[in-house]
């Protein structure tokens, strides 16, 4: 680690971050590195170097900030038929992570998804591993991810429901593997003239 080419120095940007950092340093100092079980090849200097590197790792982690990441989904589903979803999620990441390549993203997610036979609003929580590639705002690939969300759906046009125009509310789960998205939900109709109280929604598509 002699050279430091292309590296940045990190400083916590908030009091909360500094406290977090201090707690982690205290955790760090507890057991393993202070043990007397130095390896035969190890020296005190090695140990000090490890502590310094750990401090740098903690600094990098502590210098995190909230960001908004865009989500896109195209899917064929029941009862919306074909739909396109646009949304965003709020995540906390170290400042140096640009997520143009693989990133771990966890946080609240919101989405609006208009389709041929309905429009859906949803809010929930998602955990994804994906990347933005050359996009500034949107995830272009989701390698794996899951999420759960509360859903409000308004159907219209030639929706397969009877009557076609209904308002439904419920929950939906999403799973994406290698950008293939699967969704499954249970919604309750709020319309007075509904044929069924509950419907199961499902879909297959791309994105999250």
């Amino acid at each position, binding site marked *: *680690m002699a050279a430091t080419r292309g590296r940045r120095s990190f400083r916590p940007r908030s009091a909360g971050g500094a406290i977090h950092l201090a707690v982690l340093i205290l955790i760090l100092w507890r057991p393993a590195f202070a043990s007397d079980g130095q390896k035969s090849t190890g020296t005190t200097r090695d140990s000090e170097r*490890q502590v310094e590197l750990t401090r740098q790792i903690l600094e990098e982690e502590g210098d995190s900030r909230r960001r908004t990441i865009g989500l896109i989904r195209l899917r064929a589903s029941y009862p919306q038929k074909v739909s396109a979803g646009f949304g965003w999620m709020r995540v906390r990441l170290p400042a140096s992570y640009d997520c*143009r390549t693989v990133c771990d993203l966890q946080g609240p997610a919101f989405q609006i998804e208009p389709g041929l036979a309905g429009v859906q609003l949803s809010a929930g929580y998602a955990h994804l591993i994906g990347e933005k590639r050359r996009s500034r705002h949107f995830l272009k690939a989701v390698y*794996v991810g899951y999420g759960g969300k509360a859903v409000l759906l308004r159907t219209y046009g030639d929706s397969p429901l009877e009557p076609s125009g209904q308002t439904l509310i419920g929950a939906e789960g999403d799973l994406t*593997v290698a950008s293939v998205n699967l969704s499954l939900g249970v919604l309750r109709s709020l319309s007075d003239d509904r044929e069924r109280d509950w419907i199961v929604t499902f879909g297959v598509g791309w994105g999250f």
Partner: protein
Amino acid sequence: MDRTATLVVCLAVLVVPALQAIETDQYYSWGRPLEDSLEVMNAKVNLEIDRALAQTNQQRRDPGMTCSAVRKRIVNHFRLLLIHRLELWAVNSALVERIPATAEEELRYRKVFLYHDRHPLDPAVLMAPSLTIQVDDVRFGTDKLTHFFSEGWMYYKSYRKGRRSGLSHEEAELKAIDMGAFTERTILGLATSGVFSRADLEANYQGLRFMTALCDPVQPLLIRTDEGWQLREPFDFHDYITPEWDESWQSSIIGRFRWKRIRPVLEGYCAILDTPEVRAQRQRYASRDRVTATERRIQELVDEGKLADPRDYSIEQVCAGRDRQGLFRNDSAPSLSIDDLKVGNTVGPLDFLYHRHRPASRGRRVSPRGPGRLDHQ
């Protein structure tokens, strides 16, 4: 609903192999300087183990808690979705130097790396290739970090099952290696992505060594003190990483159809195989190389005719008998010097082969001769 359920099952069958179809290319890193990350990787692993132990000691003051239970907590601490926590950190942290070095270069790398020429239905096309890092003077794909902790744990479970059924230590290890080799030959390797990665199996095996060392009956790495569970000594990748993790040293076995696409790319590296930097690296590897348990088992499978001979896919075999420097001149393509590969220079051996000169050079350079044994599929 029935149709939808069928569709869901079909999609799951299609995409699940993609989860493990992550590929890597250490040839791409040849001649490019790369800082060794042994110390910072050790620091990160020790930090995460310490966090796992701190949580364990805080939450569970149960004096009857076994070493095995603590080990499981450490494994779970590293686990994330698909890619392990350590790998994600290694590909994002500014403290670890990687090849490709930047996001922009990484996106270009995906178009030229060893396995870039893929069938559209190849499940690996859905996943990003792993980057190369150097730890303890060995270059390897960051996917090996996930293999070490994730597949190492799978190996350990197989090993433990074997031991409980009365197998000796060696027999139980062999059982675990066989499990890994089977998955590489089938759903997670040859049958899906067309690549049997011997380096992956080496990382798995070293992961098994770590898992067993944590609770070794004679000298366990995990010890219980008055303050709770601790590591007897800091984790050190030096104890586990071998040259066999480098896929340019430990060549993978490639399926017949995949080989047709990979061989021409590999031939592009003949031009720099004899450069001082690459030769020195391979000499260092040779001095550390030992016959591993995995290699012995693979050789048995080769002898039984169940696997192709990995030597047929080595760079030495591909370049054997060739005028290495003249290879490109004959194809009217520019020769490369090692200086072309320095960091910051975007020209790589594959850049010109697959972009500027692709139509002209490709047809002439593909050898009609395949490797000696390609009848494994």
